[in-house]
């Protein structure tokens, strides 16, 4: 009994130690956002300091682009992901229920699109956007992000939909339900964990997206990763107060989402094939 308790204690101590180690950079950047530039750069690092909100005030008031960039990030991420999840849900429903010829191959093709590294397709995508006049416009960029998010979502959702028995559909049909009713009122409520998992995974992807925003976006469509990359260097050195405040604002939404929906993330990572108590 006692040795069990010691084992457990050691186990949790180790887990805490590793977690804290991983969390240190995050804690450092968040703490730094409340410091002055001198305090950030001081050696040895100051642990005890008087917090200041100057960095945030400066970020939101003096940096004219930041508010626009924040809005861009929020609006583009959310709309791209909502479109992607809706389209993926319908696609996954078809794959799962009607099993068109070549379903497995189509699913493989879908996932392989997602396997392509961004730089491999950036040139043709850039030429297409440039020629169509889509550069620096919100809707094309949102649709592009949605397109990039769909394959993975289809995979997650098909796993979940396969876990919902066709008997549920049949009960609806036998009682006179339309397909619309079956898809959205019968099946959808049962794959909520999958929808949330797909939503969060894609949100994280679009929220962090830099490369395409940099190449096929423009002044109107800049997002936070773009702001971070571009604003890092100023007045001849690293702009630490800017980096710290911006990063803190930047990591807050995904952290909140992940904290709120962490149990669905686990379900999503297993493509819905391992159905835990969610």
């Amino acid at each position, binding site marked *: 009994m006692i040795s069990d308790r010691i084992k457990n204690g050691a186990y949790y101590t180790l887990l805490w130690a590793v977690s804290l180690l991983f969390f240190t950079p995050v804690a450092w950047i968040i703490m730094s956002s409340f410091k002055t530039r001198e305090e950030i750069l001081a050696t040895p690092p100051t642990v005890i300091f008087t917090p200041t909100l100057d960095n945030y005030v400066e970020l939101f008031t003096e940096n004219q682009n930041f508010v626009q960039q924040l809005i861009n990030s929020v609006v583009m991420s959310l709309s791209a992901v909502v479109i992607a999840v809706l389209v993926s849900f319908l696609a996954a429903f078809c794959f799962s229920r009607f099993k068109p010829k070549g379903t497995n191959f189509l699913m493989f093709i879908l996932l392989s699109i997602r396997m392509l590294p961004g730089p491999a397709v950036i040139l043709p995508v850039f030429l297409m956007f440039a020629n169509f006049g889509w550069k620096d416009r919100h809707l094309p960029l949102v649709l592009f992000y949605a397109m990039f998010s769909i394959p993975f979502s289809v995979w997650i959702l098909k796993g979940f939909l396969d876990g919902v*028995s066709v*008997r549920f559909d*049949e*009960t*609806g049909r*036998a009682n006179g339900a339309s397909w619309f009713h079956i898809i959205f009122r019968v099946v959808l*409520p049962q794959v909520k964990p999958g929808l949330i998992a797909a939503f969060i995974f894609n949100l994280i992807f679009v929220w962090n997206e830099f490369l395409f925003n940099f190449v096929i976006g423009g002044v109107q469509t800049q997002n936070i990763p773009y702001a971070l990359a571009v604003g890092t260097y100023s007045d001849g050195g690293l702009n630490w107060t800017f980096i710290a405040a911006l990063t803190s604002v930047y990591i807050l939404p995904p952290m909140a989402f992940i904290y709120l929906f962490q149990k669905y993330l686990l379900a999503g990572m297993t493509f819905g094939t391992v159905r835990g108590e969610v």
Partner: protein
Amino acid sequence: MSIRVSGLSKAYGSHSVLDGLDLEVERQSFTVMCGPTGSGKSVLLRLLVGLETPDAGTISLNDVDITGYSAAQRSVGYVPQSFALYPHLTVRANIGYPLKLAGRPSREIAKRVDWAAGVLDINHLLDKKPAQLSGGEKQRTAVARGLLKDADIFLLDDPLVGLDYKLRERLMDELKSIQQDLKATFFYATSDSLEALTMAEKILVLDGGAVVQKGDVVDVYRHPTHRRSMELLGFPRANILPVERRGAEVSAGPFKLDGAPDGAALAGLRPEAFSLGDKDGVKTRATIQLIEDLGGEQVIYAEADGHPLTWAVATHGLRIVEEGEAVELAVDPDAFVFFDGRNGARLNNPAAAPSAEAAP
């Protein structure tokens, strides 16, 4: 006719389940379809509901050809073999689902849900979610939902399978009286002879995707014209013994017979046909292996010459034999019912009844 099916065929790949099936179900009748597992009962019901599309043939409900109609366009109540209760809805919402879909006012739904829940004795569960129910409770919820459809044809796919004995008996009575109250056609699939004998007015025996016998349940029980009719109806199950010929000698299981019709491969024998060896008839030595005492009646399992025999006898609580005892069993030779080896049809004297008279 309430349901009329003609030439109905359905195959899955190369596996043919129904092959040119014809059947009729009378209006407002309680018709039971009896058949062994895999005889196509569920597939037939799914075709009638519209969940499957037939390869050939036509289906008419209430004299309207609805073969090409979608499930939504056919007005039939359906209790599926799987419960398929919606996990995100309460029991109350699950039961009221057909009415809700039909756009009924919520007061009417509430009233009728209460009625159905009362009949099936699940009032206390109405606010629970399906995950909180036991298997039997889920089943009763599914039955209640199936009955709450505005339809005059109800298809029930083995709805009482696996329920405990007392509940099943009560629900059999309830289903029967619901059918009479609703003045609806109940078409009920089961492989359980007790359910068939208790509830059926008309019975259809299905085997290998075809109707092999139909009629009033008592007639079918007394005059089985197919081996499946004899096998499936009657509790305990009838003995089906292999018929063998060695030269002039004919035997059915352990019994030596004077003769059998040409082509007879199987001989059916009701469990009630046996008596102890002091009576006249064909005889065999048998060893008693197990005795189930049902109170007034005993079901005795014996073995004779490698053949298991089931013997049901009213003993009024007395023990006439003991387990392990070797006894001589006698059977009236007229009690044997012979069936064709190829198609299972009855060969001898189809008009005469087997010796056992009373249905249990």
